[in-house]
């Protein structure tokens, strides 16, 4: 009798309407967003520290290429990391060359500039420390052109002539050899940045990638990719490192509880599967 009732419980779990799972995930993720628990983020990963330490040790006024490749979907994971990264780069007095490699990325550059610098093209240091090249078509071909000649686009995103900008005056090569780091933010494996910037010109790559892509970055780490942020967690770690907890750090409670709920459901689902394995399926 006991076995029969426990079997039926497992079967109930197996055949449960999937919408209850969605509801549980929604509730578990919503509660810590509305009522933060302050769970610790844990140890900072060596991938995040790799990027942080590299930027920290660069000499002032180093040129860093910041590639925005985040779509609105990936922005939830990548944008907080890009903002935290910018705070660090600016605090160290480095120069940033922005470039968007997809059509929906330029607003994220503009938003990040406004949030970190207060202004974008009308900032007093625009053209001296910061230049926004805007969107360059043909992803990898566009980057190859830019890496070969920094004046490839001739103007910035706002139509200003690049050659007249103070930003580029002391750069000896006017190509990727002048860059100290190329940081990619988005939802691709950043292999194309390694291909077009790191291997031919010796400029290392860093990044903040959507978590789903992180396993594809590891083959290049740490030889070509000196460090990278993995999704929202990597962004939260960087926010903590630069002592500016923001959106990513605020989302970590929800992420932790969301994962816990999913793990419990996977375990329950597997128990249900093994318990009902010997039993014949179907009606009649």
């Amino acid at each position, binding site marked *: 009798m006991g076995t029969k009732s426990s079997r039926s419980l497992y079967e109930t779990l197996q055949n449960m309407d999937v919408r209850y799972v969605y509801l549980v995930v929604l509730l578990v*993720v919503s509660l810590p967003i509305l009522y933060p628990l302050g769970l610790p983020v844990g140890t900072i990963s060596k991938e995040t520290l790799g990027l942080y330490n590299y930027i920290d040790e660069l000499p002032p006024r180093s040129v860093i290429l910041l590639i925005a490749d985040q779509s609105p979907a990936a922005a939830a994971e990548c944008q907080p990391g890009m903002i935290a990264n910018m705070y660090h780069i600016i605090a160290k007095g480095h120069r940033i060359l922005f470039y968007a490699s997809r059509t929906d990325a*330029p607003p994220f550059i503009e938003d990040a500039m406004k949030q970190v610098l207060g202004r974008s093209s009308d900032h007093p240091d625009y053209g001296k420390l910061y230049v926004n090249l805007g969107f360059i078509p043909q992803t990898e071909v566009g980057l190859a052109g830019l890496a070969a000649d920094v004046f490839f686009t001739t103007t910035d995103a706002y139509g200003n002539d690049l050659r007249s900008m103070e930003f580029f005056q002391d750069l000896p090569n006017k190509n990727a050899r002048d860059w100290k780091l190329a940081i990619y933010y988005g939802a691709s494996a950043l292999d194309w940045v390694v291909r077009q910037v790191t291997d031919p010109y010796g400029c290392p790559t860093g990044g903040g990638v959507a*978590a789903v892509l992180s*396993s594809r970055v590891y083959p290049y780490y740490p030889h070509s990719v000196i460090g990278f942020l993995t999704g929202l967690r990597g962004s939260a770690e960087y926010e903590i490192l630069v002592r500016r907890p923001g959106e990513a750090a605020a989302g970590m409670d929800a992420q932790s509880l969301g994962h816990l709920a999913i793990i419990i459901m996977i375990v329950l689902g597997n128990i249900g599967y093994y318990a009902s394995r010997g039993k014949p399926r179907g009606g009649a």
Partner: protein
Amino acid sequence: MALTDTMTVLLAAAITLGLFSYLWKENLAFRIAEHAYVGAAAGYGALILAESAWRLLSPQLAKGLWYWYLTVLLGLVYLFFFSGEYFWLYRYPTAIVIGADIGTFVARSIKTQFLEQIRATTIVTNVNEAIVVIGVITGLFYFYSTMERKGVLEGAAKVGIYFLMAGFGASFGVTVMARVSLLIGRLRFLYFTDPAYYLIPVAIILLIIGIFMERSKKT
């Protein structure tokens, strides 16, 4: 907040909730949101592409470099995609773009994704790197079908499949992490952006009405 900002936030919240409504079942709100999103993304993308193409082209034309007009001509040839008779012309710009992409990719990928990867894999300085070497070699044996898998080959392939499963498991784990992150991003927008949160009770009421209507239809 300006009226346009308010309307933008309300529209974004309505589209977000409309897309989430698919989790209940496919419905009119989801279809409207889906089509609006796809249409807006395509329109916005086309506009940015045209603007950037002109931004890159105009300085060259201003210098009197006439041959840059050829790129405009080549771009316009894409429109023959809509012609039955002259469709073949559309293949020329397509071939040039794909050729440039492949040329840029292949020339560098041999070093980056083949030679460099082999070199990096063969350098073993600690236990983790030794595990990587074992994983790569045994994983390759799993796909080796030239000889019958017997003895050492069979054992290596078996070890390889465990490495592959561990890799797929890690990919699944980070995929879940990514999806939860996206949900967090959207929920934070809905809960904390004024006036987006006003649409949440509206959506809940509509959902309850929908569920009752569905149940009454069944009975």
